């Protein structure tokens, strides 16, 4: 028995020594080992699919080093974000970020991670959000909806993940643009996750919602829900008749939309940054990446925006909204 134990201990020591040697000989040509991509939300959602698509597409351009996807959900995505921002800046732990990484610090002064506590490697895609009602409802347009909200004085209900989540801000921005009180003109009913949110409208338990298109498109295509407005820079190709918020002249709502970014910890080495600039350039025109993006209802925007400026403008947008709505002073 003790002999075996000794052997095992020896083996473990040898293994430790081996890993020490490997990690000692660092980054001559990045990447030398698999890269971990942390997704700060649960598996199966829009961010997860985006992260996995990136991992699959990037692999051949990284000298066949795999990108290992790890889901680390919790605290509106800030748990995973914190892990990446606090990890070693060696380029082996990266983050698939979402609009939440700019929104959360914009609303909470005590956010565990600031909006700029990262190195920004790129903005990957824009994911439209849709304002929708149950198909049985007599609301046919945004104007109908706003009239009804005015008539009912706060009794109209909408589903959202929470008041300060992006799908709560979509509605509040619209209410604010329409000259209504964003917090009391309609009642927010919190639900968790795209499936529950959609079923609240499908089952007639709440009146309307404005959430990510991926969760709503199946129901709109099946004729169970009616799309009133799209939160995106352009109209969606599969909803050519539905106007965007910008077209309808809504100032704040016109700027709201979902997006995915690609971050690393602060002070990434230059060779890591250079490598990913090169890889993302190739991913941007990759057939697989583009077709997967289309399937999830996203528009790839790799390389179109300067990431630093984009994230900063997003932070400012939501920070101003949070002040206007009265979440912060």
């Amino acid at each position, binding site marked *: 028995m003790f002999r075996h134990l000794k052997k095992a201990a020896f083996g473990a020591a040898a293994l430790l020594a081996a890993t020490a040697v490997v990690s000692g000989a660092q980054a001559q040509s990045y990447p030398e080992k698999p890269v971990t991509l942390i997704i700060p939300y649960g598996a199966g959602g829009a961010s997860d699919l985006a992260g996995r698509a990136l991992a699959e597409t990037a692999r051949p351009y990284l000298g066949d080093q795999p990108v290992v996807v790890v889901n680390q959900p919790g605290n509106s995505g800030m748990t995973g974000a914190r892990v990446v921002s606090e990890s070693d800046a060696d380029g082996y732990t990266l983050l698939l970020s979402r609009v939440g990484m700019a929104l959360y610090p914009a609303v909470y002064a005590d956010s565990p991670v600031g909006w700029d506590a990262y190195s920004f490697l790129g903005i990957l895609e824009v994911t439209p959000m849709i304002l929708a009602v149950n198909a049985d409802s007599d609301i046919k347009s945004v104007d109908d909806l706003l009239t009804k909200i005015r008539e009912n004085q706060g009794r109209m209900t909408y589903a959202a993940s929470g008041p300060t989540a992006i799908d709560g801000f979509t509605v509040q921005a619209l209410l604010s643009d329409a000259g209504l009180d964003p917090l009391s003109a309609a009642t927010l009913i919190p639900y968790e996750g795209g499936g529950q949110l959609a079923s609240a409208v499908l089952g007639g338990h709440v009146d309307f919602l404005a959430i990510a298109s991926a969760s709503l498109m*199946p129901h709109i295509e099946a004729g169970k829900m009616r799309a009133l407005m799209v939160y995106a820079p352009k109209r969606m190709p599969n909803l050519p008749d539905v106007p965007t918020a910008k077209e309808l002249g809504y100032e704040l709502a016109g700027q709201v939309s979902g997006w995915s970014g690609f971050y690393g910890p602060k002070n990434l080495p230059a060779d890591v940054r250079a490598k990913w600039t090169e890889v993302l350039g190739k991913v941007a025109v990759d057939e697989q990446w583009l077709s997967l993006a289309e399937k999830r209802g996203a528009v790839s925007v790799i390389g179109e925006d300067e990431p630093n400026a984009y994230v900063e403008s997003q932070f400012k947008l939501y920070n101003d909204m949070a002040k206007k709505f009265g979440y912060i002073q």
Partner: protein
Amino acid sequence: MWTDLLYAFDAVATLPNFLAMAAGIWAGVIIGAIPGMTGTMAVTLALPFTFYMPPVTSILLLVALYKGSTYGGSISAILIKTPGTASAACTVLDGYPLAQQGKGGKALNMALVSSCIGDFISNISLFFLALPLALFALRVGPPEYFMLMAFSLTIVASISGKSLLLGIVSGCLGLLLATVGEDMYGSFRFAVSEDMKNGLGVVPVLIGLFALPELIRLVVFRPEDTSIAMKLGDNRLTLSEFRHSLKSILRGSVIGVILGAIPGIGPSTAAFFSYSEARRTSKTPEKFGEGELEGIAAAESANNGCCGATMIPLLALGIPGDVITGVMLGAFMIHGMTPGPMLFQNNLGDVYALFIGILFSSVFLFFAGKMTAGAFSKISRIPQHLLLPCILILCVFGIYSIGSSSFDVAVLLVMGVVGFGMMLLNIPAAPFLIAFIIGPMFEDNMRRSLAISRGDLGVFFQSWISWGFFLLTVLFVALTIRREWQKWRTKSRTTA
């Protein structure tokens, strides 16, 4: 329709599909049996592989992993009192006492047979009742959900063991612990550290509460018989035992199907629900918790009965009810198929192929379960003082691997100490757990209902579904009070 079915049969009966299902079920059983490793993890890990498979094969693989892990959890629940997944927590109540009596093999067989039957009934209802059940599930809004959860809380009375009072205490502690973390409007409760903002995970709490107290007891009291392994005598399940439990199995399967079809409820609640019903209708309710085969049958048929049914809202409406079906939704989308009513129009062939494949999976589950349980039952021969430290290591690693979070490990260990304290005070652990699982759903749906109605309590009595659950709750509470009163009267008579 029949030609469609025949085509679908032809499409599904291929070697890759069968291999994917067999491999999925087997891997699922093993992963489910390892404490801390859950079906969610198995399905998430397998997701990237499915990118390269045909759509039907990839969904069959994920479904197989889900079913396998739901059964697999019962193996460790019975043999080492460590539910591998939350859905097997209820199986511990009677499974472990049976294993201690040397009837571990019998318990494993009962769990397998009832799992397979529950699974099969669930698959059949997926095939024939998908649309009506999905429409029923949509009608369950916040008020109906709240009433259902209120009724589920009365389960505490059935799983309290000897003292109802201690059971209620335990349930209240569970409800209290469930409030830790972020509430639905985004404010934080009892969030002492950054990690606590997320609340406490179900799996660390569950394993800490059930598995660790046994280990601590061994260290603290140093009983002398620890080097003796459990006896392995009675392994076979007799026909009469099976017949005796058949009613509970069938009822458990139906409970599993209905609760499984409602998004968000999940197999652990269904298992406790079914267990409570079996105990209530049993002629010998006092045997439950001491090693009653029928208890295992009720719990296991209900949790596997959920498996097929959770696919109903996913396929018929495109609404994932839990994390696992959420991952499956992702897998469907990757292959350009969007679950929901359109799926039945655009991809009817694939849907039929999927249904037929899923029907076969119950058979695979039986054989994979049989082989694996046989191998695992040898664990009972390992002396306790060697086995328990190994379990501790497995638990710690398993819990860490779920979210790579050392906070989860801390929760596990603290809950172990709490569980040991409860063991010393004779407070049952099961009510704590069920209240902990139900608590958030109970609270969220109450607050949602009242937000919708702007504080008007009438919202809870607006549909026949709410009324139904309300009356059931009242009836169950009345029956419990009557039972307790009779118990008290006979006791005072014997002492007088």
